[in-house]
């Protein structure tokens, strides 16, 4: 291009030629002014979320785009019948279909999947108000890795008796070979719709004329086929450019106990009997990483945290006979990653206790309101639950829960606390609509964020009642003093602060006070509950520090002592973990009152045993991995017709000189 320009200037005067060459060379190096042409052509879309590819032992799910992005003419779908235009009638395939959330249904997506050579991609507009119901998960969550199988309770396996998630349309577990992005309902989406109305509408039945408004989506995924293939390709050494293509899903489990355990002594402990209280931490949605899991998981672990806090005082004054271990499992959505790992560690002597040390398990599932039936049941329950039932009257399988993984290893008495008798009451199970509104978490409109933090909502009061019942049941199960049971009460203020922090905004004063200084930047608007691959998910850290704050004790140690507590006579890092937290800001100062918390709260790795053992095709353990990718972006622009592109290339050489002049000027 630059040499053309020099020739254009003429073959005459050589010194003028040399001067021109140097000027052109200089300008072509610093082509800052030429980049504005790109900005005039493309409009980048910033608030988009892609759907990514996940793989397990046998399948791949999710979406894939081609390596240089998929371009398609935008078509805003008005109804299901309107699908004829992109799929058969429209004259300018491929099309990029823009869907409102009411049209994001299984039948429309499957029709587009079958005609995927005319569909370049799909963009879904996610509204601020939720539809009546929507669940992209399967109807029978985790059906192959629970306790029921063809060998054990075959009539209860594969949801033969109870379909847990009847509203599930299974979209999250389908494979699409075009990209699917989600857009928010904001100015960008209005701009896209306006571009469509201006250029792409057919006028009086005639085909729309070029140039047309087009969208390009880039979400090229590296992994393919299934987990054994992608893990094998990760390990190949002698290729020219070794590339990692996928990573196993996983994070950390959080556990804490009333009486501390020595963190270096693993395996069976003589005469030790433990009651485990469990809840799950994670959830998912169709699109990558956006998942709020309000009823699905947040309600459960917030209740358990409140119960742990309620038990703190009474267990110090009148310790029960058995120990109580609070366990928060991460990765349960994807075939029980966290609980299968903990059971595996217990079976192989890599955890502080053993399966034989477990007396019983109490798990908190999806809880929304006061659970009347089980409240009465638990209040009259005696120590020694010898049966495994959800409802005492009906013979029914356990819902998908971490308890199933414990039962798969060994028969242990257990209870799962849930707000549904058979099918889930949650209308948005594992979807991006399972948010604060789903739990009826509403605040009066005139409150500031700090006031909202303190306001005790109705939901918080219900969950507090559940937490009180759970705490009393745990204390009785652990053989505590019967006369003190009625003094155990959960604190509604703590429950409402936790609900605010986990579902509305985690960047509030209480969460800031409870977290470590180096982690204060991870707090933002509601945290994402997707388990992810980076081993650094925000909910895990939040639950770790909250559990430490609610069950541990503040100490007088300085920051350096907090990092090396073994030098002090009474402190031991093997028995406790020592966390330096920010503390509150006193009224008349700007410095935080940081201090050291001593608590028996630990993190254990929650990566599926399939990856430890190298059995990537395992049928017993979770084998979920997430693909890697280079970049993900979306942009819209006006596209010209194909034949014009060819003509333009041949005539461009003649016009290059003029364009260069205008570019440089």
């Amino acid at each position: 291009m630059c040499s053309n320009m020099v020739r254009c200037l003429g073959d005459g005067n050589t010194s003028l030629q040399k001067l021109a060459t140097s000027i052109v060379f200089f300008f072509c190096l610093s082509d800052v002014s030429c980049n504005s042409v790109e900005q005039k052509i493309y409009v980048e879309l910033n608030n988009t979320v892609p759907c990514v590819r996940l793989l397990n032992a046998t399948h791949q799910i999710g979406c894939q785009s081609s390596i240089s992005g998929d371009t398609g003419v935008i078509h805003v779908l008005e109804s299901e019948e309107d699908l004829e235009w992109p799929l058969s009638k429209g004259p300018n395939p491929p099309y990029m279909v823009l869907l409102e959330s009411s049209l994001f249904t299984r039948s429309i997506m499957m029709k587009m999947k079958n005609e995927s050579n005319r569909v370049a991609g799909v963009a879904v507009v996610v509204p601020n108000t939720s539809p009546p119901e929507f669940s992209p998960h399967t109807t029978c969550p985790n059906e192959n890795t629970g306790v029921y199988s063809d060998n054990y309770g075959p009539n209860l396996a594969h949801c033969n008796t109870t379909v847990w998630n009847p509203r599930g349309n299974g979209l999250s577990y389908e494979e699409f070979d075009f990209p699917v992005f989600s857009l928010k309902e904001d100015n960008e989406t209005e701009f896209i719709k306006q571009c469509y109305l201006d250029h792409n509408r057919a006028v009086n039945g005639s085909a729309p004329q070029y140039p047309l408004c087009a969208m390009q989506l880039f979400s090229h995924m590296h992994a393919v086929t299934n987990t054994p293939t992608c893990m094998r390709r990760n390990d190949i050494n002698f290729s020219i450019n070794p590339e990692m293509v996928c990573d196993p899903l996983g994070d950390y489990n959080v556990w804490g106990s009333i009486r501390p355990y020595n963190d270096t002594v693993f395996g069976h402990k003589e005469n030790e009997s433990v009651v485990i209280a469990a809840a799950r931490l994670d959830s998912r949605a169709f699109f990558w990483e956006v998942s709020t899991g309000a009823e699905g998981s947040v309600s459960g672990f917030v209740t358990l945290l409140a119960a742990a806090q309620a038990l703190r005082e009474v267990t110090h004054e009148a310790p029960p006979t058995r120990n109580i271990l609070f366990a928060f499992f991460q990765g349960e959505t994807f075939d029980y990653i966290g609980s299968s790992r903990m059971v595996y560690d217990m079976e192989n002597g890599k955890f502080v206790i053993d399966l034989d040390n477990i007396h019983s398990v109490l798990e908190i599932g999806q809880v929304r309101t006061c659970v009347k039936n089980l409240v009465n049941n638990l209040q009259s329950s005696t120590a020694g639950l010898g049966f495994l039932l959800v409802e005492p009257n009906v013979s029914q399988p356990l819902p998908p829960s971490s308890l199933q993984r414990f039962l798969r290893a060994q028969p242990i008495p257990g209870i799962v606390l849930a707000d549904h008798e058979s099918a889930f009451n949650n209308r948005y199970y594992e979807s991006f609509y399972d948010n604060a509104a789903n739990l009826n978490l509403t605040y009066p409109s005139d409150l500031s964020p700090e006031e909202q933090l303190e306001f005790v909502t109705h939901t918080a009061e219900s969950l507090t009642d559940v937490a009180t019942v759970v705490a009393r049941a745990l204390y009785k199960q652990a053989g505590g003093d019967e006369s003190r049971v009625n003094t155990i009460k959960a604190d509604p203020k703590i429950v409402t602060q936790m609900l605010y922090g986990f579902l509305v905004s985690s960047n509030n004063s209480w969460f800031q006070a409870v977290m470590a200084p180096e982690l204060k930047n991870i707090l933002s608007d509601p945290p994402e509950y997707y388990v992810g691959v980076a081993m650094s998910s925000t909910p895990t850290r939040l639950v770790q520090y909250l559990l430490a704050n609610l069950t541990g004790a503040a100490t007088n140690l300085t920051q350096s002592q907090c990092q090396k507590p073994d030098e002090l006579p009474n402190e031991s890092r093997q028995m406790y973990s020592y966390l330096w937290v920010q503390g509150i800001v006193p009224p008349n100062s700007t410095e935080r009152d940081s201090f050291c918390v001593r608590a028996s709260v630990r993190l254990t790795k929650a990566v599926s045993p399939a990856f430890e053992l190298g059995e990537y095709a395992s049928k017993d353990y979770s084998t979920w991995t997430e693909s890697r990718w280079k970049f993900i972006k979306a942009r819209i622009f006006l596209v010209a017709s194909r034949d014009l592109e060819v003509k333009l290339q041949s005539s461009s050489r003649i016009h290059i000189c003029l364009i260069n002049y205008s570019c440089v000027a």
Partner: protein
Amino acid sequence: MNLERLPNEEKLTLCRKYYFGGFAFLPFLWLVNVVWFFKEAFVKPTYTEQLQIKTYVKCSGLGFLLWVAVLTTWITIFQHFRAEWGEVGDYLSFTIPLGIP
């Protein structure tokens, strides 16, 4: 290198070197042999060494065609079936494309 200036014995030596060199899994040496010495072997008027040069050129040509046949067959089979061979296909590859089987 201009073959015009070389005496005939040296032409023969050169042709022979390229012919024997091609046996070390170097089929392009045979191709060079054929192209370079074609005129010498078949177009120029006869001279003493020309018969030997002709033999070498013919054998080089045959060898090169054999290599082409073998490589084309192998490349076609590999490109077509690499994805289906799974593990074996991956271990035989130097670069594996991302995102497609």
